[in-house]
């Protein structure tokens, strides 16, 4: 495949070597963020072992999932948003649609983030919710809230991605009940449950004991398979790994091992490979390190396809690594805030050159707080400029065939397999969670990177280079604290109009179903959907769940 070095090439190399001889030994060897060595020049010789006989849209999908890349329809613009109560967020949804945010073929995509009390599973009146209600996400906990979320949106052409935490089963149950109240079948539901229970290696908040986390995750996957077949029931949260400090190679290795652990748990629970693996999807981080990120996305698709094939998947589209990129927030700096726009542009460019399916661009002021209307719109427009002005969507896998990118793709794959195989051999992701090994390795990588930033070895403009003493005094978006009273009032109004005896009975049903899930004798989701129909809230459903499935602090 690789052309044999010709006399012409040999002569060119000699000229090259002669021209650099005087200074070559002074060049400082560069590495990627993952520590892989980078040469100053790549040539056809570097591709000697690369398999270049691939087309986009065919196994193993290194060059992309679709035969023509973004030519048929561009990537989904899935901006994360959500604040206040559903009333404020509903207005924001409408505004985002008006701003042109859309998914495939003009579908609506709402990537809605919950506030941390909801994710953790406490309602507005819980003492620990104070100070966080509606702040970094929307507070949605009642049937009324979910009715308002879906009001008037066409379920066939609207995607509801719900950025939940431990509450993803109750959240899905509340959505299903709202769809039923509208007189429509849950089969019409489109969207995504995060199902991030194994995320305790990357976000340190207390969560289920790992083994019960997996039982809950599979319960949701099974319910969705039977009741909402177009629903994406689990998202593999590689973004969490990299934001916690994993290098891009570690992110690949641990993320794919995380995915493999879901496959294993599903197969063990009796699901057939082609019944659920194709519905798994990924959220991946993206730093400013352009070429390493492009290579990462290419290697990721190929590695996941191989894992799926080995697991028994037969249908090629079920081997697709469908990827949503959330540009890294960690790389944004509070110093010289506007510089972040340059970072975000590079991150989004890397994601798109890497051929991902969906992008969230952070706003430049996220290092300060929740984005303003203006910064959020600029982040969306950054994607739209890439989409419509830059020409990057015209050609599939435009960097394919680059000596450097092909070599780096192979090298990252090899380095990631090494970590992956070692973890698999020692019991896989679940065991790595239980022993804390994954978290320790990520924390150590984060610490090493911080030391490099502190010493100036890893340049960060505005932080350790070109530092300014000038303060920014940037006024971020504020969610008025009166939102807390509003959220509580909404909760109280909801509770006062329901049949409390029916709610209590349904919650008792949840309690029993939790035990049944633990015993392996029955599912939990149907009991949660029934509780949601009767009027139970997000926080109320979480009480018996927390009692049943342990509460695991991993720090």
């Amino acid at each position, binding site marked *: 495949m690789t052309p044999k070095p010709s006399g012409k090439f040999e002569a060119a190399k000699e000229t090259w070597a002669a021209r650099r001889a005087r200074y070559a030994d002074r060049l400082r060897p560069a590495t990627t963020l993952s520590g892989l060595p980078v040469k100053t020049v790549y040539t056809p010789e570097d591709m000697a072992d690369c398999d270049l006989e691939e087309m986009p849209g065919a196994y193993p999908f290194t060059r992309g999932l679709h035969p023509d890349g973004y030519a048929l329809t561009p990537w989904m613009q899935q901006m994360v948003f959500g604040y206040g109560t559903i009333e404020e967020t509903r207005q924001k949804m409408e505004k985002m649609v008006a701003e042109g945010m859309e998914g495939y073929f003009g579908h609506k995509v709402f990537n809605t983030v919950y506030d941390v009390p909801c994710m953790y599973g406490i309602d507005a009146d819980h003492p*620990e919710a104070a100070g966080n209600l509606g702040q970094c996400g929307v507070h949605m906990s009642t049937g009324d809230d979910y009715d308002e979320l879906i009001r008037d949106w066409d379920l066939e052409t609207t995607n509801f991605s719900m950025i939940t935490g431990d509450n993803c089963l109750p959240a899905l149950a509340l959505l299903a009940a709202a769809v039923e109240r509208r007189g429509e079948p849950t089969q019409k539901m489109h969207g995504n449950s995060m199902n991030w229970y194994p995320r305790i290696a990357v976000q340190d908040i207390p969560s289920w004991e790992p083994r019960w986390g997996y039982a809950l995750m599979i319960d949701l996957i099974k319910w969705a398979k039977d009741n909402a077949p177009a629903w994406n029931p689990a998202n593999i949260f590689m973004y969490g790994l990299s934001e916690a400090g994993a290098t891009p190679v570690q992110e690949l290795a641990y993320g794919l091992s995380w995915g493999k652990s879901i496959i294993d748990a599903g197969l063990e629970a009796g699901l057939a490979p082609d019944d659920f693996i194709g519905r798994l999807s990924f959220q991946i981080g993206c730093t400013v390190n352009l070429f390493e990120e492009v290579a990462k996305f290419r290697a990721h698709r190929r590695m996941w396809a191989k894992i799926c094939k080995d697991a028994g998947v037969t249908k090629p589209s079920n081997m697709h690594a469908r990827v949503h990129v959330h540009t890294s927030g960690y790389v944004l700096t509070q110093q010289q805030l506007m510089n972040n726009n340059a970072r975000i542009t590079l991150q989004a460019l890397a994601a798109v050159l890497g051929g991902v399916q969906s992008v969230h661009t952070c706003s430049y002021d996220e290092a300060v707080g929740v984005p303003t209307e203006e910064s959020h719109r600029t982040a969306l427009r950054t994607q739209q400029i890439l989409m419509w002005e830059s020409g990057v969507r015209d050609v599939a896998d435009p960097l394919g065939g680059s000596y450097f990118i092909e070599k780096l793709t192979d090298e990252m794959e090899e380095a990631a397999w090494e970590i992956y195989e070692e973890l698999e051999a020692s019991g896989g992701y679940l065991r790595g969670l239980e022993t804390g090994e994954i978290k320790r390795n990520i924390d150590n990588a*984060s610490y090493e990177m911080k030391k490099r930033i502190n010493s100036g070895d890893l340049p960060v403009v505005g932080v350790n280079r070109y530092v300014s003493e000038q303060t920014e005094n940037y006024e971020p978006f504020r969610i008025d604290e009166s939102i807390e009273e509003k959220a509580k009032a909404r909760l109280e109004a909801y509770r006062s109009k329901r049949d409390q005896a029916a709610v209590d009975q349904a919650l008792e049903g949840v309690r029993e179903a939790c035990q049944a899930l633990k015993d392996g004798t029955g599912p939990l989701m149907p009991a949660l959907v029934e509780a949601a129909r009767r009027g139970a809230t997000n926080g109320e459903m979480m009480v018996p769940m927390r009692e049943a499935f342990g509460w695991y602090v991993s720090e």
Partner: protein
Amino acid sequence: MSQERIKVLLAKKKIDVHGRGSKLIARELRDAGMEVVYFRFGVAEEIAEAALQEDVDVVAVSIMTSGQMQVARELVPALKARGMTDVLVIMGGIIPEVDFEPLRELGVHRCFPPGLPGGVVADYIRENVGTASLA
């Protein structure tokens, strides 16, 4: 004070996601020779109780997903109520610069933006521990 090991309670709300910054600071303060107790709390009252029990010199609160004002409003009186008026109170994380002064008025001695070398925080602690007052 300068002869003894400085003891820091590094507190973060249970529901405050992403622990990267707080864990880095914990490690960097330890590198600077301090004893660090890392603690996840539910309500601010629990920080004050832990600070008392651990007899710390410094209470540091890490914020990622907001709530800094609410924590400060409850934490400082809770420390005072326990007689801990000479403890140094600092905050850091995703906190807007424009909140630094209002937080100071609530009794937080100093706020730090994210991403600083831990040594900067350690230097501040060394220079100010023992001289602070919440009175």
